[in-house]
C-alpha cells in the first residue's frame, strides 16, 4: 500500500476513535456525528480501494484524481459550515426565547412589589433545587 494511503488510514482511525469517544462522553450528539462517520468511511474506502477515487473524478469530469479529492473535500467542508450556520441560527433563536421567557417569569413570580431595602429577602430555592437535595419525598 502506498505510504499516503497508509497515512490516510491512520488519520481515519484517529478520527473515528475521537468521534466515538466524544459521543460516549456526551460531548457530541449522534445526529451531528453521522456526517463525520461518513467522511471516515470515505477516507477508508479511498485508502484501501484507490480506483474509487479515479471513478469519482471521471464522474465529475476531472482529469487528475487528487484534484477531485480536494474539490470534494472542499465542497464537503462548505456544506458542513453552512449546516452549522443553520444550527447556530436555530440555537440563538431558542436562547433568545428562553432569556425573554425567563425575564418575564421572574417578574411574574416577584409579583407587583418593586425591589426595596425593606423586602430584599434571600431568594427562596425553587422546588427543583429543593428536590435535588432531598432524597425522600414526604
Amino acid at each position, binding site marked *: 500500500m502506498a505510504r499516503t494511503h497508509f497515512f490516510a488510514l491512520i488519520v481515519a482511525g484517529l478520527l473515528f476513535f475521537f468521534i466515538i469517544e466524544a459521543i*460516549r462522553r456526551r460531548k457530541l450528539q449522534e445526529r451531528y456525528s453521522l456526517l463525520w462517520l461518513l467522511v471516515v468511511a470515505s477516507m477508508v474506502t479511498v485508502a484501501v480501494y484507490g480506483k474509487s477515487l479515479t471513478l469519482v473524478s471521471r464522474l465529475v469530469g476531472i482529469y487528475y484524481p487528487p484534484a477531485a479529492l480536494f474539490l470534494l473535500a472542499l465542497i464537503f467542508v462548505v456544506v458542513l459550515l453552512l449546516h452549522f450556520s443553520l444550527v447556530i441560527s436555530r440555537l440563538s433563536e431558542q436562547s433568545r426565547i428562553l432569556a425573554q421567557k425567563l425575564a418575564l417569569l421572574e417578574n411574574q413570580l416577584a409579583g407587583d412589589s418593586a425591589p426595596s431595602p425593606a423586602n430584599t429577602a434571600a431568594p427562596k430555592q425553587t*422546588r*427543583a433545587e429543593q428536590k435535588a437535595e432531598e432524597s425522600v419525598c414526604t
Partner: protein
Amino acid sequence: MSKDFGRVLVIVPAYNEEANIAAVVADVRHHAPFADIVVINDGSSDGTAGRAIAAGVAVLSLPFNVGIGAAVQTGFQYAHENCYDTAIQFDGDGQHDGAAIATLLEGLENVDVVIGSRYLGAGNYTAPLARRSGMVVLSAIVSTIVGRRFTDTTSGFRALGRRAISLCAKTYPSDYPEVEVLPIMHRAGLKVIEVPVTMNPRQGGTSSITWARAIYYMVKVILAILIELLRKAPTLHGEKT
C-alpha cells in the same frame, strides 16, 4: 387500584393536537379517574394548550418545539419533583387507548417499567411497510443487546415506577427516545416487561416515514445503542452501585 400504585401521573405529550386533546383527556379521565394528568405542550402553534387548560388538566408549555424526547422528559421531571409514584406515558394524538391503562398498571406490580406492545397478540395493528420493517429490526437489535425479548420498542405507551421516573428525569435521549432508553434502563438495573395492548391507527394524514428516513433512523439508533454500551452504568439517585 390506585392504592397499589400510590400517586399516578399521566403524561400526555402533544404537538398541535387541538383537535384531539380534549378527547384524549376525557379518555384518560374516564379510565383512570384516580390519576393526575399533565399535558406537555411541545411548542404547539395551535390551540392545544388552551383546549387542555379548558379541560382542567395541568399544562406545561415549552417555549418552542423540543421534540418528543425532551417533551416527555419534562413530564418525568414534573413527576419526580412532585413525588409521583407512577408515571404513564400516553400520546396526545389519540392512538393510545385509555382502557389499556389498567393493563399497564397491573403489570407494574414487581417491575420498574411496563411497555404496552402492539405485537403481543392483542389486536391487529398495521403500519406502512417501511415503518414496520424498521420496527422489527430495531426490536430484534434491542432484544439481542439487552438479552430480553422486546416486540414493540417504539411504543410510547408505558408505565414507569419511581426508580424509572428518577432515571428518566435525569437522562433521556432526544432523537428516538422510546428505543434508545431501553439499553439505558437495562444498564441501570431496571426491570422492564411488555404487556399486550391494542392501539388505534393514525387519525388521518400519511405517515412521514419513507424508506430513506427509516434507514437513517435505524443507523442513528444502532449507533446510539452501541455507544451507550460503552458508557458507565447509570446510577439511580440515592442507590449504591
